[in-house]
């Protein structure tokens, strides 16, 4: 069985005198031959097949365990990524308070607007008030326009009355 092609004499030369080397090499050589002269015990082929089945089962189990571990790790990484993204969003919102909410306002997204920052709700309220004021102003303008027409009529009437006296 032993078949490692080792140069024993070369190895022995590192540790022993030249006079000892031949004797030791011969002892080793004879010992190896003595062991090799005995039959090589071999496992029963049925045992080898059983071992192969066990090994295959263990390899499959290991593979599925590895896959499960990878899945868990991927899920963990995904979860951390979501948490990190959430954290970044919070920081960005704190730095620039009128981000998405502002957009939601401009696009009239009431669903999002319902969850907006109170500061934005205040702005929204103020904008509504301004809008109402503008409407009032517009309404007043119409009224004012009507008044000026009356004034014009009164002026014309006055002028006409004066004209009567002139003949």
């Amino acid at each position, binding site marked *: 069985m032993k078949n490692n092609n080792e140069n024993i004499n070369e190895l022995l030369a590192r540790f022993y005198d030249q006079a000892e080397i031949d004797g030791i090499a011969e002892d080793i050589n004879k*010992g190896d031959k003595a062991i090799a002269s005995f039959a*090589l015990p071999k496992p029963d082929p049925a045992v080898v097949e059983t071992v192969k089945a066990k090994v295959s089962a263990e390899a499959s189990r290991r593979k599925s365990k590895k896959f499960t571990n990878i899945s868990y790790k991927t899920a963990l990484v995904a979860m951390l990524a979501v948490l990190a993204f959430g954290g970044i969003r919070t920081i960005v919102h704190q730095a620039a308070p009128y981000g998405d909410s502002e957009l939601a306002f401009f696009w009239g997204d009431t669903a999002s607007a319902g969850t907006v920052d109170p500061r934005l709700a205040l702005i929204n309220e103020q904008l509504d008030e301004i809008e109402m004021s503008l409407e009032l102003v517009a309404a007043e303008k119409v009224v004012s326009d009507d008044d000026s027409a009356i004034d014009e009529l009164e002026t014309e009437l006055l002028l006409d009355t004066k004209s009567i006296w002139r003949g």
Partner: protein
Amino acid sequence: MVDNNELNRIVKSCQKGDNEAFSELVDIFSTSLYGYFYRLTGNTETSNDLLSEIFIKLVQKIDTFKGGSFKKWLFTIASNIFYDFLRFRYRQKNLIDGKTATLGDSQQHIDSTSDLKDELDHYLAKLDTDTAEILMLRFYGELSFKELAELRSEPIGTTLSKVHRGLKKMRKIMEDDNAHQSLN
């Protein structure tokens, strides 16, 4: 035995989880590993169990093999399994007998239910466990002195000396035994 390139290819396939590659390793090493366990325990049943155990360990630990001599790596596991078995049996024996047993006892490596089939088992049984193990590692593992020394974490000169003394002692036992038989 396959050449190193082929062996490396098979091992890499095993590391990728290829079941066929594991079967190839069983085909390549089952005889040498069985021989190693059988010569040290002298028991077929125990050797079969240890053979299963080492291949299961091989599957579990294949990712830890980072190159170098695969045979050395595999027989390091085999050696650990053998000594674990001895320790287990030592504890078992203590429990049963209530006596103190010595791990290095000259008869320690032969199981009490041994089914000795040839004289080599008988000669090995007369050597101490460490010597018998190093001889079987060298013979069945086809390990060089350098690999043996690395496996045993000892200087190569120490390994060389132990193998030399072990082989010489075994031959002496064989000669004495033959002389004894011829007298009878």
